[in-house]
């Protein structure tokens, strides 16, 4: 272990993404955004924009986990992960298209989805929040959030890409300097995005744990995707000297940690709101479940599935050593990804929308919609799913491009040798 010959490592060939993959991504994007257009015109603009928001927000928080993990690995000098670091290191590429799509939402979707955008629905509590809840601020938080997370993610990855050519050890030091302020900026940017994009769907409601909940959901989904890509890469003969089952195991352990931490945060948030039972806090839960008469709200069953699907089942599946070290990780990760989308749908779909024009929105638009108009309807989320595929196509094409454009292994990283010999 005392000898480091990083210059002597032979670079594996760059990743080849078949043309059909990009064609499939393009087809998914076309179907998704055509469905969105159809929904906008023929179904219900509010529902179509909410479906758009579900896809946009899911892929935004999942993409956020990439730069976040890269920054953490830089700051902790995580030598073990060097050979798999280009996987989260490719997620920055999704921020450019997602940022454009978010700007479209900020300009076109806000008035369809958020009741605070309608002066006729303002009550005393919403009026107090108007300095935050207004469209210019919404646009500003979009710009700040997407450029902070995606921009720093790009800068950190670019230094790593440069190192592939120059072998300059100082680039690693530059990334340390970028990583620390990035984590602070990312937290602030994600707070702005989570408050504006999702928390303000029910503008009376607030939770100081909301950003943490959103962050860990994104990290859990992102790690699940990283596990799938890492297992797939480790099967390639050319990468066998670089990615072994111990790297997969540690990514699996991080996924396990994220699963446990999600349960901790989600339950803490629920417990405090359930215990205090303040109307403006409990409104989030009263929209999504009924404690006394479970059958009166169709969303009760959707809510009740969450702790089992997102924690109990993946927790016990990931607990044994063997499931974290190889192919079992793929079905478990797909399960987690599915229920991360489910959670984002659960955040956004049941929230009341402003009842503008001919829309068939669920509530009157006033914060107390549930109290006055009964629980939100539970509709088969066909439109949401189709629009989600549109965002999936954009996201998959972006990271596939970044993974294949540069080396899949940071070939001159000072810790590459250490990572290649990673054991337990």
């Amino acid at each position, binding site marked *: 272990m005392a000898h480091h010959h990083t210059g002597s490592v032979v670079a594996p060939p760059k990743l080849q993404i078949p043309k059909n993959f990009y064609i499939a991504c393009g087809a998914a994007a076309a179907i998704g955004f055509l469905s969105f257009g159809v929904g906008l015109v023929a179904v219900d603009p509010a529902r179509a924009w909410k479906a758009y928001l579900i896809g946009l927000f899911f892929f935004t928080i999942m993409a956020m986990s990439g730069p976040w993990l890269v920054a953490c690995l830089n700051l902790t000098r995580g030598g073990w992960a060097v050979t798999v670091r280009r996987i989260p290191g490719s997620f920055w590429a999704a921020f450019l298209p997602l940022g454009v799509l978010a700007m479209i939402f900020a300009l076109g979707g806000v008035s369809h989805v958020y009741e605070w955008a309608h002066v006729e629905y303002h009550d005393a509590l919403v009026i107090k929040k108007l300095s935050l809840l207004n469209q210019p601020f919404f646009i500003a938080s979009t710009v700040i959030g997407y450029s902070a997370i995606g921009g720093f993610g790009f800068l950190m990855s670019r230094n790593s890409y440069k190192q592939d050519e120059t072998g300059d050890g100082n680039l690693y030091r530059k990334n340390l300097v970028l990583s620390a302020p990035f984590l602070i900026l990312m937290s602030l940017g994600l707070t702005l995005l989570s408050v504006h994009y999702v928390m303000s769907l029910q503008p009376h409601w607030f939770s100081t744990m909301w950003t943490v909940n959103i962050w860990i959901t994104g990290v859990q989904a992102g790690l699940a995707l990283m596990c799938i890509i890492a297992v797939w890469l480790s099967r390639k003969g050319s990468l066998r000297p670089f990615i072994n089952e111990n790297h997969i195991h540690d990514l699996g352990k991080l996924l396990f940690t994220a699963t446990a931490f999600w349960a901790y945060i989600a339950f803490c948030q629920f*417990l405090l709101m359930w*215990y205090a039972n303040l109307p403006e806090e409990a409104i989030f839960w009263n929209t999504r479940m009924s404690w006394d008469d479970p059958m009166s709200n169709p969303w009760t069953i959707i809510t009740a599935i969450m702790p089992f699907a997102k924690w109990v089942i993946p927790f016990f599946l990931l607990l044994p*050593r063997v499931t974290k070290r190889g192919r079992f990780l793929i079905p478990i990760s797909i399960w987690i990804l599915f229920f991360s989308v489910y959670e984002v749908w659960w955040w956004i779909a049941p929230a009341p929308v402003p009842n503008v024009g001919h829309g068939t929105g669920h509530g009157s638009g006033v914060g107390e919609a549930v109290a006055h108009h009964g629980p939100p309807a539970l509709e088969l989320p066909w439109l949401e799913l189709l629009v989600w595929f549109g965002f999936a196509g954009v996201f998959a094409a972006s990271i596939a491009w970044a993974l294949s454009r540069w080396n899949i292994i940071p070939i001159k990283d000072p810790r590459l040798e250490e990572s290649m*010999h990673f*054991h337990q």
Partner: protein
Amino acid sequence: MLTDHTGSGGMFALFTHQGEILDAAAKARDKKFERWDVFTPYPIHGMDDAMGLGRSWIPWVTFTAAMVGLCSALALQIGTMTIDWPMNIGGKPFLPWPSFMPITFELTVLIGGLTTVAVMFLAGGLPNLRPKIVHPQITTDKFALYISADDPQFDAVATREFLESLDPLTVEEVRFDR
């Protein structure tokens, strides 16, 4: 581990490189010795496989103790708050399971963690204030493969022959002073 718990002596071979000790350990494993150990100045990656150690049984102790903690926390709270003396607190149900969760979580972690530490001490023979050290250099720059005289296959001649065949620096007999 630096110690010999049996106190009955045995034989060890001394090596200078970690590659040698890994090969030697793999050969001792294939000879199916039962009471033997490897002493190294630092942890060596791959030694578990070379010695054929398999998986530790400690996680099962942790899991069982954690389940005991979970059940006792629930029994304590449901017994006192729901069955023995039901109390109306803030209009919540008499079985307010969400408010039981923090204590349930804490006792699960506490009993699981403390039991694991205690069992690790027991399993490792700790605390051991007077460790018997096979050779002083195993804490600095040498690697030792030690076979206890308690091993069923131990034989003063055959075991020495086996250790010599590993091409070590020296092979020495161990006699512990009581």
